[in-house]
C-alpha cells in the first residue's frame, strides 16, 4: 500500500539510514582497519596503505588457529547433538499429554533463560560432582544445554505447522511410523532443521560467558580473543573480527533464505 507522502517517506528513509549507520559503523570500521591499519605519522593519526599483513599474522598465530579449531568442533558437534535432542523433545511435546509436554518444555528452556552466570556455575558444579575434568567434552555438553532450546523452538514451530494430516495420509497409504518419519515428516521439516542447526552453530560459536566456567586449558575463540585483548591490542584481532563478521553474515543470510523457503512450502 503506497500513499503519496514523499516528505514522510524521505524522513523515514533518513531515520532508518542513520540507525543502520550507527549500528554498523563500528563493524565497518573494524573491517576497514583490518585492511588499512591506523598509524601515527609525525604525531598525527593516518591510514597505512592497503595491506593483508594482519591476515598473514593471523594465519601464523598458532594459538588463535587452535582456538578457532576448537570453536568449530564444539559448534559442529553441539549443534548436531542439539538437533537430535530437540527433535525428540518436539515429537514428545506434540504427542504427549499437554501438562507433561509443558513441564518438559519448561525444563528445556530454563538453561537458556537463566542468567548465563548461573547456568555456567551450575554446570561447573555438576561437572565437579561427577568428576568430569574441564576440557573439550565439558564445553560441548555446556553448549548443547543452552542451544537445545533454540533448535527445539525452530523445530517445534515447523512440526506444529505441519499438523497431523500428512502423517495420517502416510499411514493411510500403508506406511509405518518410521517410514512416515523418514519419507514425509523429516523432509517436510528440512528447512527448519537446517536453519535450527545454523542458528545453534552461530550461537555456540559466539558463546563466551558459560564457556568461561567450563573450559580448561583448551579454549574457544571468543575466550582466546578476550584473553588477548587484556594483554594488548594486536592487528590480527581486526582481521579475525572481520572474518567472523563475514562468516556470521553468511549464516544469517542462509537462515533467512531457509525460513522463507520453509514458509513457502
Amino acid at each position, binding site marked *: 500500500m503506497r500513499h503519496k507522502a514523499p516528505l514522510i517517506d524521505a524522513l523515514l528513509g533518513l531515520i532508518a539510514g542513520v540507525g543502520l549507520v550507527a549500528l554498523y559503523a563500528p563493524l565497518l570500521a573494524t573491517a576497514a582497519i583490518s585492511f588499512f591499519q591506523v598509524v601515527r605519522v609525525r604525531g598525527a593519526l593516518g591510514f597505512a596503505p592497503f595491506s593483508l599483513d594482519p591476515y598473514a599474522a593471523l594465519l601464523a598465530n598458532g594459538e588463535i588457529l587452535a582456538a578457532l579449531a576448537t570453536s568449530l568442533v564444539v559448534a559442529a558437534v553441539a549443534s548436531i547433538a542439539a538437533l537430535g535432542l530437540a527433535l525428540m523433545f518436539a515429537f514428545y511435546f506434540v504427542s504427549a499429554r499437554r501438562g507433561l509436554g509443558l513441564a518438559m518444555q519448561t525444563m528445556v528452556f530454563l538453561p537458556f533463560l537463566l542468567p548465563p552466570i548461573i547456568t555456567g556455575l551450575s554446570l561447573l558444579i555438576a561437572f565437579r560432582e561427577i568428576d568430569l575434568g574441564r576440557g573439550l567434552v565439558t564445553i560441548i555438553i555446556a553448549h548443547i544445554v543452552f542451544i537445545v532450546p533454540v533448535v527445539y523452538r525452530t523445530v517445534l514451530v515447523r512440526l506444529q505447522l505441519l499438523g497431523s494430516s500428512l502423517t*495420517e495420509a502416510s*499411514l*493411510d*497409504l*500403508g*506406511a509405518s511410523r518410521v517410514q512416515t518419519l523418514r519419507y514425509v515428516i523429516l523432509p517436510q521439516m528440512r528447512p527448519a532443521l537446517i536453519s535450527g542447526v545454523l542458528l545453534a552453530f552461530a550461537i555456540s560459536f559466539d558463546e563466551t560467558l558459560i564457556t568461561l566456567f567450563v573450559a580448561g586449558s583448551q579454549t574457544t575463540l571468543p575466550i582466546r580473543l578476550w584473553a588477548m585483548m587484556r594483554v594488548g591490542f594486536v592487528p590480527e584481532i581486526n582481521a579475525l573480527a572481520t572474518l567472523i563478521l563475514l562468516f556470521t553474515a553468511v549464516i544469517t543470510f542462509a537462515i533467512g533464505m531457509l525460513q522463507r523457503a520453509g514458509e513457502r512450502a
Partner: protein
Amino acid sequence: MQPLLHLENISKRYGAVRVLEGIDITVAGNEFLTILGPSGSGKTTILRIIGGFESIDGGRLMFEGRDLAAVPINRRPFNTVFQDYALFHHMTVAENVGYGLKVRGRPRAEIATRVAEVMETVGLAAFGGRYPAQLSGGQRQRVALARAIICEPRLILLDEPLSALDVELRAQMQRFLKSLQRRLGIAFVFITHDQEEAIALSDRIIVVNGGRIEQEGAPEQLYRRPHTPFTAAFLGENNLIAGTLAAVDGPLCAVDTPAGRLAATVDGPAPPTGSAVLVAVRPEHVRLDAAPMPGEGLTADVADVRFLGANVMIELRHAALPGALLKVRRLADGSAAGLVAGQRVGLSWSAGDAALLRAGPAPAAL
C-alpha cells in the same frame, strides 16, 4: 450376503459431547454409498472411524466379519481421499502416486509401471514430473485419487472431495468418480453436504443429522418417500404442513390441518390417529388452478413469482398457515405467465404425492 463393512451401533464422544449415537451402516462390496448431512452432523467422524483415525466409545466395526478394533490405520485395506488432499508437497506427482507401493517395498520397476497405469486412469499421464504446487485444484484431486487407488483398496473413503472445486469442474469430477467406481468395481464411501451431488452419484444414501441416522435408501426412494421431516426438507424442497392424523385407510391418511383436511400417503405402518404429523408435498407435485374449485385442496394467495431459468417458482401465502410460504414449481413454458401477486388460486395434489411424516424436532436445515 455378508457386507464388506459393517458399522454396528457405533457411538462416539468428544469429552462430554456425544457426536455419534447408534450409527449402524453396512457397505456392500461394490456400491457407491454416500453419507449425506449438514455440516457438523458427524460425517467426517464416521469416515475417520472407518479409516482408523478415531477410536469408538461403543459398538463395533466389522470388515468381512472380522472386528477391526485391533487393526491399525496402515493395515486396513481402505484408502482415504482427504478433504484437503494432504498431498506430499516435497514429492513429485509420480512419487506421491507411487508412495503406497514404495512403503510396501515393491520393486522400482513395478512401481514405475503401476504409477504410469494409474496416472493414465485418472487422466494425469503427462504430469508425473510436476510438484503438487504446480497443479490446479482438480488435478490435485486426481493425484489424491490415484495415490489411493494404486494401493488396490477394497474401499475408498472420500471426505467432501468436490467441495473445493468450482461448479463446472465439480460436475465433471462427479461423472469421473462415478465411472471410476464402476470400472474399479470397489466400494466408495463418499461424504457430502450437497444433496444434489448425493442424488446424482449414489447407489445408496445415508442421511445423518445430529450424529444419528435419519434415513437410508436409494436416492429415488429417499426423494419420493422421506420418513422424517429432516429428510423431507434436506433432500430437495418440500412443502411441510403440520396437522393431526384424523383417519387412516390402508396407506391413505386424512390429516386435519389449520388449512383444512388434507390427504396423504403413509409409507409403512401409520402412527395412531390423533398423533402430530406433517404432510410433505414437493413443489413440482402441486397442481395450481387459477380458478379455485371449492371443496378440493386449499386456496392460497400468490406472494411472488420467481423465474429460475428452466423453472418458475411460485410462492404462496395461506391465511391459516402463518410464517410459511407454500411453493409450487412449474416449467417455465408460459403456463404460469398470467399469475400476479395477490391473486387467489387453488392448490391440489394427488394423495400419492403427499407423504405423511411423524412430526419430529424441527428440521435444522429450514
